[in-house]
């Protein structure tokens, strides 16, 4: 599966689509970028008069690029491709730098394991200056049902 096909398969749309480019994907990891438009709705409230990108949104951005794009690639190349909902199953992220409206960020992920349809990854986000913004581990799965 190529990068364009993966982007088209992503199950997100505005205002919760946080992938602009998928620059690289192979069986070991994925790289991509996203620019946070100052118009994004959450900046109105996080924080009042001091917009900064919420950590949960940075985590989500790392998940969409690093975990879901990679997961779609791995599922397509696995012996039993699966259809279903993607779900985030665990996060452990440290935050080092703030990301302000208008900033572009770069995400890279590295597969730790992909077994039984669960993908566990190291993920890292850097800013335009090349500084690490946040990093940690994320896991996700594909599920047929959304309630368990």
């Amino acid at each position, binding site marked *: 599966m190529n990068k364009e096909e993966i982007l088209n398969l992503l199950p997100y749309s505005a205002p919760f689509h946080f992938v602009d480019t998928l620059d690289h994907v192979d069986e070991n990891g994925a790289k991509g970028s996203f620019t946070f438009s100052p118009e994004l709705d959450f900046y109105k409230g996080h924080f009042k008069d001091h917009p900064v990108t919420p950590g949960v949104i940075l985590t989500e951005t790392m998940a969409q690029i690093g975990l879901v794009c990679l997961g779609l690639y791995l599922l397509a190349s696995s012996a*039993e491709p699966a259809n279903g909902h993607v779900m985030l199953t*665990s996060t452990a992220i440290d935050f080092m730098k703030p990301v302000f409206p208008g900033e572009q960020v770069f995400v890279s992920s590295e597969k730790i394991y992909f077994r*039984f349809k669960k993908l566990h990854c190291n993920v890292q986000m850097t800013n335009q200056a090349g500084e690490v913004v946040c990093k940690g581990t994320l*896991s996700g799965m594909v599920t047929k049902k959304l309630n*368990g």
Partner: protein
Amino acid sequence: MDNEELISRLKPIVAVYAQDKVALESMNPETDFIKDLKINSANLVDVILDVEEAFDIEIDNQSMEKMLTVQASIDIIKHKIGLK
């Protein structure tokens, strides 16, 4: 390795992920990982990976799908050890 020994080796692996500690204390062959111990499907994968490492076996997708209770896990672990 008899069932009792297998359960005693399985218990510390499962304990890391079990949410229901009372059910964990009384873990027996009938214990269901999801219904009784409240382990979620993502952590069930971790249980299987830890079992693989602890017993030096490889668990295939079909076996994994059956490993929902302590008894089913014991049967599969015994079978896989026997194959070595």
